[in-house]
């Protein structure tokens, strides 16, 4: 389900009241022209998962924090901030969690400078 960034907090709040009260994961995908921030929520009563996608402009990378509604978002948001350079508004999530270096490029972005980008057999043709 696509969600607007401004409506993220209200959507997650509404879903929580409808039983989607377990946060499974926050992650992101860098599609180069845009970045999708992905929230996966679960309803234990119906065993249903709902995937929320928030499309972000790479020049304006931020999402609001949902830590007030889902405390389990803490480490996921820190990971998002570190790996994708997505700022988390409403809290300080900038402390590094997985990496111990202060790199310029967020490592999970496609722009990250690889030592040797791998090519498939098709690319080599």
């Amino acid at each position, binding site marked *: 389900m696509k969600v607007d960034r401004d409506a993220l907090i209200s959507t997650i709040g509404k879903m929580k009241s409808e039983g989607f009260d377990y946060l499974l994961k926050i992650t992101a*995908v860098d599609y180069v022209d845009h970045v999708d921030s992905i929230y*996966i929520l679960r309803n234990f009563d119906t065993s249903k*998962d709902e995937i929320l996608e928030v499309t972000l402009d790479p020049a304006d990378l931020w999402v609001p924090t949902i830590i007030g509604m889902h405390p*389990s978002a803490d480490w996921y948001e820190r990971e998002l901030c570190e790996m994708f350079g997505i700022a988390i508004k409403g809290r300080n999530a900038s402390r590094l969690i997985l990496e111990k270096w202060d790199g310029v490029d967020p490592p999970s972005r496609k722009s990250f400078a690889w030592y040797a*980008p791998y090519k498939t057999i098709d690319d080599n043709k």
Partner: protein
Amino acid sequence: MTVTRINVGPVHPSTHGVIRLVVDLEGDTIVNVEPHIGFLHRGVEKLAESRMYMQIPPYMEKLDYVAPMSYNEAYVATVETAMGIQVSERSQYIRVILLELQRIASHLLSLGTLCNDIGQTFTAFMWAFKDRDIVLDLLQEATGSRMFYVNMRLGGLREDLPADFSEHTLNTMDYLEKRIPEYVAYLEKNPIFTERMKGIGVITRDEAKQLGVTGPVLRASGVNYDVRRSNAYYVYSKLHFTPKSLQDGDNFSRYKVRILEIQESVRLVKSALKALPEGNAKGMQVKLRSPNPVNRISVVNRELPKGECMMYMVADPQKPYRLSIRSPSFINLAAINHMAKGERFADLFGILGTLDIIMGCVDR
């Protein structure tokens, strides 16, 4: 009272991998625990973006080196979903048998190291490792390896089960069925064990949901959710799998859920072996070039021994565009501050032991 800060680690404070805990204490009561992770971070998600589909399973196995096959299967199932590949019925049964054997081995290791952590050395530790070894013998017989198996192939397995496997496994399962009550009798009648387990590190049902904990930790707090039933895959529903849950949410419940799960896994392995159908279990041969994916995004949930793993894969032809792994240990470890607050410093390691974290899985 003044607050004392103690640094635990970054060598392993118990036996689960490299982690550093900064603990604030008032006397010997814990005020705050801050885990520092990332010492084993290898960037597996990023590495996966640079390898072709069937070059990735060996990396997946190194995520959880105590139950490598579970991660391998979760990844291969994600690729199968992306490519729309069906798994033959015999392969499904064999996968369930091997995965449950892997779960027994993982839970036994967890039990052994837990007893080590809380000073319940040395009997239970030796028992658990000896019994785990017997289960590893079975996995070696089936796959040729004791630690890293890489035996999952698209649509099946690398090879079918050997001729005597069924008999050996049934014998071992009979042995474990008699053996597990011995663990229970030995541990639960022992005040050193029970006093350090009961009422320690409590998470209530609501807190468990809020903290996002998963697997045995979640089920010990009264949330009866297991992917094997609620979102059943393979033949779990045919084998009438029933999840095990308890209500108290303390160290003891988490230990007990794992014991009950070992017993359920033993039952599952026996029923799966008895119902094992004839047919072809061999999957596709590994070639560098695999079929092109038909689904751009695939999401697969699996119940690993440590908890629920979710793989979110965006597929490109021949290699993943993005692979995101929801590791169960990562989110379970995040709850440690909540669980340890107000407990004694010595109980921190019991709590860490019942969380059953593996740092390779936390750090990815």
